[in-house]
């Protein structure tokens, strides 16, 4: 008998729980997967704001060649270190001012969005695909293959991620692509662990046994039967990795080991601007703000995704 639940409404009163029970009350007209997902996602105001900001950043990145008032790389000797337009000495043509060699900060930021999003997408694709495959293999074959893969992942996780990325870039040579490879390698153990854990949990379920009995091949079992059921935590982790990749790439750029000048990558811009911090606040402030806003938007979305996808939260 479940007395606790029914007897004490509100003992464990939580807004989420109350909302959840409200929707289960209308269970008969159960929403389709995507609509249900959107329902939960849109409950989280922060997540919706994050999504809007993120879409705006994508639009800016895609439309940078059209939107940007200046070239991101052309230097203008007549406009060195101009302050933003609203400050004394600023010019309306350079809304957010110019950098020490006379490039328009706003234009560089817009083009920089392309790099940040590209880094995020590429790193996530790389680390998710390699991580998921390794995790599936480890979870499926068990035995020494599993042990080897997991020990290697432990070793990667034993290093601070940024340090390992830094050292890898030292091996591969500085540059944006190498930085992305290094970051993907550092982030990928999380996907291996997650996938393996989900595979181990799902393998015990009846539907997997029935597929196996029905004669599904190992490949089919791995990718068609089990993988779709482990997607939720992977998606959440992928969002986290997206923002981590942007942060780490910017950090490597800042240390001079990522994208190289004159690439308008935000971290690299910060590195170039460092010596002017006490003279020209805008060259430092805006690139960092761009990083913060992008990462914050993605993390807001990540929180919303977690709430919407986490079945544990939904049930409570």
């Amino acid at each position, binding site marked *: 008998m479940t007395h606790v639940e029914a007897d004490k409404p509100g003992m*464990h009163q939580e807004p989420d729980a109350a909302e959840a029970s409200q929707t289960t009350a209308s269970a008969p007209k159960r929403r389709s997967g995507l609509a249900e997902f959107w329902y939960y996602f849109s409950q989280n105001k922060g997540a919706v704001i994050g999504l809007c900001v993120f879409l705006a950043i994508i639009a800016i990145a895609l439309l940078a060649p059209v939107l940007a008032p200046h070239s991101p790389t052309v230097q203008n000797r007549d406009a060195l270190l101009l302050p933003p337009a609203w400050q004394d000495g600023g010019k309306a043509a350079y809304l957010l001012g110019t950098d020490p060699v006379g490039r328009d900060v706003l234009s560089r930021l817009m083009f920089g969005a392309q790099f940040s999003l590209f880094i995020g997408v590429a790193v996530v694709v790389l680390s998710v695909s390699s991580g998921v495959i390794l995790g599936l293999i480890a979870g499926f074959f068990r035995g020494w293959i599993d042990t080897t893969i997991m020990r290697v992942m*432990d*070793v990667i996780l034993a*290093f601070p991620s940024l340090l390992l990325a830094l050292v890898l870039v030292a091996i591969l040579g500085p540059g944006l692509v190498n930085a992305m490879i290094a970051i993907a390698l550092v982030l990928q153990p999380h996907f291996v662990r997650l996938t393996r854990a989900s595979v181990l949990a799902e393998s015990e379920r009846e539907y997997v046994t029935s597929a196996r009995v029905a004669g599904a091949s190992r490949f089919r079992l791995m990718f068609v039967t089990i993988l779709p059921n482990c997607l939720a935590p992977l998606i959440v982790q992928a969002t986290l990795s997206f923002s981590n990749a942007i942060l780490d790439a910017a950090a490597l750029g800042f240390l001079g080991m990522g994208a190289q000048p004159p690439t308008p990558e935000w971290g690299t811009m910060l590195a170039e601007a460092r010596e002017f911090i*006490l003279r020209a606040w805008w060259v*430092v402030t805006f690139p960092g703000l761009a*990083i*913060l806003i992008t990462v914050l938007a993605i*993390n807001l979305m990540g929180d919303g995704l977690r709430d919407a996808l986490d079945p544990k939260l939904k049930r409570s």
Partner: protein
Amino acid sequence: MFRFALSRLALIVPTFIGVSIVAFAFIRLLPGDPIMLLAGERGMSAERYAELQAEMGFDRPIVAQYFDYLLGLFQGDLGTSIVTKRPVLEEFFTLFPATIELAFCAIVLATTIGIPLGVLAAVKRGSWIDQTVMGTALVGYSMPIFWWGLLLIILFSGTLGWTPVSGRISLMYFFPPVTGFMLIDSLLSGQEGAFTSALSHLILPTVVLATIPLAVIARQTRSAMLEVLGEDYVRTARSKGLSPRRVIGLHALRNAMIPVITTVGLQVGVLLAGAILTETIFSWPGIGKWMVDSVFRRDYAVVQGGLLLIAIIIMFVNLIVDMLYGLINPRIRH
């Protein structure tokens, strides 16, 4: 307890071997000749080259080389810096206190602020306090700390002139290091103003380094508290007529601390990664800056040694956290 510690130690061994292989392989994966990289001498005769090759064991099979390396490690030999010509281990121990001082202050700041904030947010769930705390925590969690450091420098060092821009202590003061911890050494030196100077140098780096751990700890504390506050034993504690302060601060918090301790432990890796950036920004002479500088100077012996030492530190901190976990959670102890 002892057996528990021993079993945890046994789990570390494979990771340690893996870490040592990574460090060992590092030099050999670098583009270029490892002898040239390690010796760093410009122009060298064929005889000198052969001599060095034999001295460093590069003429032997790779597995034998690894065991030589491992043997060296156990004798405390992590190679010699090309730039300073000092043993890597010695350099490490000179610089490590600076990093410990910074990291310790940061983790203290992060826990003393993060845990109460998380508890407050959980107790006032859904209120504006909760929303403000969690919103701020998410901003902190998303913060590019290298930029955050620069911003604080602009504000507090530039505009307000309150804090120094870089270093550990003003150049006015000089005293021989005793403990390596500037706060303690400055007190021991007895020089007037030295402690204040050291403290003012420490504030901004600490804040910067503490930002992300603080956010993570606050978020984790909140969710752990929310879970615990719904438990039956919290109701029991309230039914005893205990004050809310005691119910939340003792009965609930003690249980919520169990997952939080793990989170705090995991922050040590985050702190050391953060130290790389923070120490670079504030010219803080610790191992983070040491690693970055060595990468740039191509002082690969230092990078190799530092990589290994930092990984070992993280492994041991995780071990200690595991022990603490056993101490605070009676279900594991018995």
